[in-house]
């Protein structure tokens, strides 16, 4: 009885604290986010919204002057979208890699809780495949939706260059001979470079981009833990962006200390590479802000030793004051636990001029706090190639606040041939397309000529 009472008392005490402290969320976006003191918990705040999919006739909600329609529904966990030179859109779908080996009693419990958020019982099952969507006339109704590549190994990033389609699986970059217009790839790919995969493959999404001159690929490799709790050996060549020579497959670490970087993108017309990064968990609802940053060759951005420059993380041993001193402050905070995964720069003319030159960012949504954050697509204005001003919500309504469930969750973002914004929605199993309200593709530009093989 005493045990029961004691346990009951402890549970009540824990439940009593089940809300995040009051905080001005807007103080945590932009170049100088407010950073409260780190907090550690008996039970860290967790609020996972289970998925339920989109009811018929329901869509995400867009900002004034825009409209949104589903370009594809019933996909199998689409996480990334990419526009080919001829206008075809690739939807990269991925199964999570096999579960990590259990090291602590906590591990299977956390895995179970997080899984609740990424699928729903009667929805389509995740597959590791790339689906090609062709909407040549741009009316939002594809003429063709077909599987281009199947049975991949948890792919995420994809990039096309001169007759080759590069796919970043979770364990390797694979190159496929490909001509835009093609709707099926039958030949096996050529292994370009191995990437760090399992057996522990904690942050497994490897995204990909190519340098403006086409000589180098850039692949993101996330850390193998929250804060090195799987040991230092597991972190070799991780938490960084790799530069891969496109011709030879040789690689080197381009920038490091990036806990879970995704969607590397060159700012149009420059050699500046930007990336969105998911920062560490379990230091409180308002630590540490995820961010958008440009990365320098050889730059170190803090993980695991410190965050946002020189804020030392108390959970790391041995500490490394030299690395802390070197840590570069990121450019622009997006808010804590928003889980920014998608990034694309807007240079087209279709959407209102206000969006030209800025960045769209897909925020998958939080789990490590009570008040949800993220679960939307935001726009970050840029001035002179640098983020400037507060983020604006462009696409919202993924979260059913009243019922604490998600219709969908945004991940990768891209811009199609017409200039519409394309969004991968992994829980909703959809690809969404955002255009100006009432827009019809009358003056659609002709498709880019197919590039030589």
């Amino acid at each position, binding site marked *: 009885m005493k045990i029961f009472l*004691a346990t009951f008392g402890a549970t009540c005490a824990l439940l009593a604290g089940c809300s995040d402290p009051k905080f001005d969320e807007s103080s945590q976006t932009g170049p100088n986010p407010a950073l409260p003191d780190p907090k550690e918990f*008996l039970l860290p705040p967790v609020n996972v919204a289970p998925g339920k999919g989109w009811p018929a006739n329901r869509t995400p909600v867009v900002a004034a002057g825009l409209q949104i329609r589903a370009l594809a529904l019933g996909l199998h966990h689409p996480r990334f979208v990419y526009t080919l030179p001829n206008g075809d859109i690739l939807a990269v779908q991925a199964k999570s890699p096999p579960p990590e080996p259990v090291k*602590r009693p906590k591990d299977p419990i956390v895995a179970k809780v997080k899984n609740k958020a990424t699928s729903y019982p009667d929805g389509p099952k995740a597959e590791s495949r790339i689906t090609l969507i062709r909407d040549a006339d741009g009316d939002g109704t594809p003429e063709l939706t077909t599987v281009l590549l199947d049975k991949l190994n948890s792919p995420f990033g994809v990039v096309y260059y001169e007759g080759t389609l590069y796919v970043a699986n979770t364990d390797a970059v694979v190159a496929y001979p490909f001509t835009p217009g093609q709707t099926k790839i039958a030949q096996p790919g050529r292994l370009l470079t191995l990437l760090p995969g399992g057996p522990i493959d904690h942050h497994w999404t490897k995204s990909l981009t190519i340098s403006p001159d086409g000589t180098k690929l850039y692949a993101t490799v996330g850390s193998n833990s929250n804060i090195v709790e*799987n040991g230092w050996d597991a972190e070799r060549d991780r938490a960084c962006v790799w530069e891969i020579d496109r011709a030879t497959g040789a690689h080197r670490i381009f920038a490091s200390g990036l806990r879970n970087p995704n969607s590397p993108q060159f700012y149009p017309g420059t050699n500046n590479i930007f990336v969105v990064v998911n920062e560490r968990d379990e230091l409180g609802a308002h630590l540490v802000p995820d961010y958008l940053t440009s990365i320098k060759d050889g730059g170190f951005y803090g993980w695991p030793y410190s965050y946002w420059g020189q804020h030392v993380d*108390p959970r790391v041993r041995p500490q490394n004051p030299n690395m802390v001193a070197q840590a570069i402050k990121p450019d622009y905070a997006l808010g804590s636990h928003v889980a920014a995964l998608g990034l694309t720069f807007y240079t087209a003319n279709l959407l209102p001029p206000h969006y030209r030159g800025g960045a769209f960012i897909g925020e998958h949504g939080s789990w490590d706090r009570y008040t949800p954050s993220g679960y939307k697509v935001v726009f970050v204005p840029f001035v002179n190639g640098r983020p400037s001003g507060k983020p604006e919500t462009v696409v919202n309504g993924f979260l059913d606040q009243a019922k604490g469930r998600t219709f969908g969750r945004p991940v990768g973002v891209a811009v199609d041939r017409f200039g519409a914004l394309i969004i991968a929605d992994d829980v909703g199993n959809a690809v969404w397309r955002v255009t100006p309200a009432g827009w019809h593709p009358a003056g659609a530009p002709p498709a880019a000529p197919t590039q030589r093989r």
Partner: protein
Amino acid sequence: MTDTRADTRPPGAGRAVLGGLHALLGAFPLAYFTFAFVTDLVYTRTYNLQWQYFSIWLITAGLVMGGASIFFGAVDWLVTRRSGTHRGAGWHILLTLAAWVLALINAFVHSRDGWTAVAGEGIILSGIVALLMLLAAGMSALTYRRDAR
């Protein structure tokens, strides 16, 4: 331990089993919780995470086996309490329960990621729990010896 000796009736097999299970299972948390303190100490000196994993598994296993031991001990106590007072049993009960509750809190502390799962609250709780378990076991041994006379 079985306290059927104060009873004039021949010891019932059921009671002997209850007391035996309580004692047998109780040996596990005594060993596990004290060893978790040792593995905590080693972790803080080596930073080798393997020792931290040892600690959290030892604490978890100690909670499970300790929980079972407390259950059988409680049933045994309810059954035998009318057949005479056992001086020292009160301390044994109090110390064991306190150790179990603190170990439960410690399991949550030890489930944090990295250094602060152990350093600070973690290793202090491990030390207190180990001490309480040793005291509780000592009390139990004294009670047993006195009752056996």
